[in-house]
């Protein structure tokens, strides 16, 4: 029987180095299994061989996540494993965070399959669930004798690249992601069948539960507009001609900023529409119809506010993933804040 090489990550407690008082110890490794690592070998009937165990203090890991990853990854790569197992972490938040982040990095950077396990409310879940599989456990480490074999049999499927089923079937925490699959019935038939069930008062299951969007409390209003620096920006993809930074027409991977400090308006031909989701003709004809620079300049001249910010941030909001948009909004906000802007006018198409 071919053995599968495993690197196992555990914290200072499972590494038999101590309790909370040892939570700040930096990472170190030992070749071979440590403590519960033996369970991995035994519950796999020798198929899984723990070739290296990496141990790190929970505080050290949680407070130094970048350093943690940087140090540990070469140790894993060097051991050449087929699989990485982290934890199980149960309800321990710092431990779960370290396990989740580590598995995420291992998959992303080394392309090695990984599995971890923890309680659904462990913060490590939300951080990593969309990128890795996290098996569900209760909150008590007393279940360890049951959980480790579960991790082993799930891991076997991953390594053998078997098809992984739904969370309920396989025992992993729902990942909050949606994947495409083929159904036996075409979409129109499923819609007609669903309507008939609904009309007949039968149970039906929607294929797309309505998503819930995050809410952010409104920021404080500007108290003195006369003194304020105002910025304008858009998701309508108004870019310099030729789209020099190649913002995509659809699902933009970036945002950019362009200088407007010596412009009183956007000239036709010098700016164009990169956004693929609306009729570009009116805005190509007059880009100020999407980014109102000309009007903002006149308001500035009339001293309605102190100064127009020298750049405009822009991206393309055409089926751009919400998570990307959140990221860009955050980065743009940080830039504006750093540059002393007090308020932003955005346009959307």
């Amino acid at each position, binding site marked *: 029987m071919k053995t599968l090489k495993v690197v196992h990550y555990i914290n200072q407690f499972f590494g038999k180095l101590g309790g909370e008082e040892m939570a700040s110890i930096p990472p170190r490794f030992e070749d071979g299994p440590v403590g519960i690592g033996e369970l991995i070998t035994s519950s796999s009937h020798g198929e899984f061989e723990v070739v290296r165990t990496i141990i790190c203090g929970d505080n050290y890991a949680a407070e130094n996540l970048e350093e943690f990853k940087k140090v540990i990854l070469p140790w894993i790569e060097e051991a050449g494993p087929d699989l990485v197992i982290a934890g199980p972490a149960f309800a321990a938040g710092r431990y779960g965070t370290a396990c989740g982040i580590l598995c995420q990095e291992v998959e992303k950077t080394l392309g090695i399959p990984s599995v971890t396990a923890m309680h659904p409310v462990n913060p490590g879940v939300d951080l990593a669930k969309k990128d890795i599989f996290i098996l569900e456990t209760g909150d008590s480490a007393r279940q360890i004798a049951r959980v480790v074999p579960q991790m082993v049999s799930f891991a076997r499927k991953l390594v053998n690249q078997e098809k992984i089923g739904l969370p309920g079937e396989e025992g992993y925490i729902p*990942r909050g992601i*949606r994947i*495409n699959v*083929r159904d*036996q019935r075409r*979409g129109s038939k499923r819609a007609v069948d669903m309507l008939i069930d609904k009309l007949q008062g039968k149970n039906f299951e929607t294929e797309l539960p309505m998503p819930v969007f995050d809410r952010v409390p409104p920021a404080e209003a500007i108290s003195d507009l006369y003194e304020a620096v105002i910025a304008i920006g858009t998701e309508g993809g108004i870019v310099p001609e030729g789209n020099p930074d190649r913002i995509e027409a659809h*699902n933009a991977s970036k945002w950019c900023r362009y200088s407007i400090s010596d412009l009183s308006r956007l000239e036709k031909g010098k700016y164009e529409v990169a956004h693929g989701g609306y009729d570009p003709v009116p805005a190509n004809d007059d880009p100020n119809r999407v980014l109102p620079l000309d009007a903002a300049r006149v308001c500035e001249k009339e001293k309605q506010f102190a100064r127009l910010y020298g750049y405009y941030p822009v991206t393309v909001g055409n089926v751009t993933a919400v998570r990307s948009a959140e990221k860009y909004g955050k980065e743009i906000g940080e830039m504006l804040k750093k540059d002393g802007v007090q308020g932003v006018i955005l346009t959307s198409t």
Partner: protein
Amino acid sequence: MEEFILKRIRIREIEFGEKTEISGGVLSVNREELSDLLMEDSCIANVDLAIARPGESKRIIPVKDVIEPRCKNIDGQDSFPGFFTDANFPSGKGETLVLDGMAVVTSGKLVNFQEGLIDMSGPGAEYSIFSRKLNLVLLIEPVKGLGKHEHERSVRIAGLKAAHFLASYAKKISCDEEERFSVSSLDKLYKKAPDLPRVVYVCQAIAQGLLHDNYFYGQNAQGCLPVLMYPTELMDGAVISGNCAAPCHKHTTYHHQNNPIVEDLLKEHDKNINFLGVIVPPVRTALAEKERIGYQVFKLAQMMGAQGAIISEDGGGNPEADLMIVARHFEKNGIKTVIITDEYAGSDGASPGLADVTPEADAVVTNGNGNQKVKLPPMDETIGFVETVEHITGGHEGSLLSDGSIEMEIAGIMGSTNELGIENLKTIAI
């Protein structure tokens, strides 16, 4: 009782030949005859024709529309009303001929980046029904300096002309299969099945400008209020697509002609439902228009006594506001509703998939996540311009790899997440 009869002539091979004719299931096309016909439009500088068959190592890109050759078998009447004859006669009644198994694909110089791709073999072919058709591709080159609106129009009309021209050669031969649909006025429907729930189908048709338009009886749907149609009108070209956004989920003219929701509702008609008809609303960009049109859709449904409805989306993003406006009206007034759409949940599937939501939308069918990434192998032949993949929806700078393979989202593959549900792709949560 009035009827609509769809006569299918099965085409099992297309080739170029001396004479345009259909014989023994083989469509032979005289290149000059067809290109001369299309070049009657002085905006077109050149027409090239190409054939792409299922299983061939061919890639067609950029694709604007796909049209199924259809024409009426009645003198003085025609399919694609409003384009070839005046719009003043009833679509959806009488005999219509269809060349089954083939399609006209319009391509050539890119009008704008909303156009898509069809692979005839390999993994890309799984994502498009058009990989299973014998495709006659029109590569249209516009005259120099032609504006985008005129370019789009010329290509669109050329596609319809070609589809109509080819179908007309079926007038002289017998058909392989006949489908008959009864066309009944509402009073007859109510009388025939008083106890079955009354259902309407609301078929969105986006009408938002260049490469985002649809045509009702030849009229650009911008400025139209919703239209009530018999289910068979759609089969006869009453709605023509000028919409390209986005390739994965926009309805091609083929999809309108072969609307699967109409087909599947008709299969249940007189069994589990009383299918009253189709309401086709344009989808506009301004909120006031969405609200106006949304109310008119509801008013029509209510006047007809609808008890249930399916609403299909055309496009993504702002049309979801229209879906929700209508769903709210319907559900609040006792019309049970199912929405059918697709989603953009990000390449990782972790983003919310729709731009607008409402708690009343509790019954939704999804035709897949358009952001899913695929890698398509190189094809031996490209019909069109493969480098446009870096500009089209679903593609990005660097999409085209040096060996000719393509990394892109399925958003760029024609019909991959078709919102009428002609495919069987679905998204599930894990």
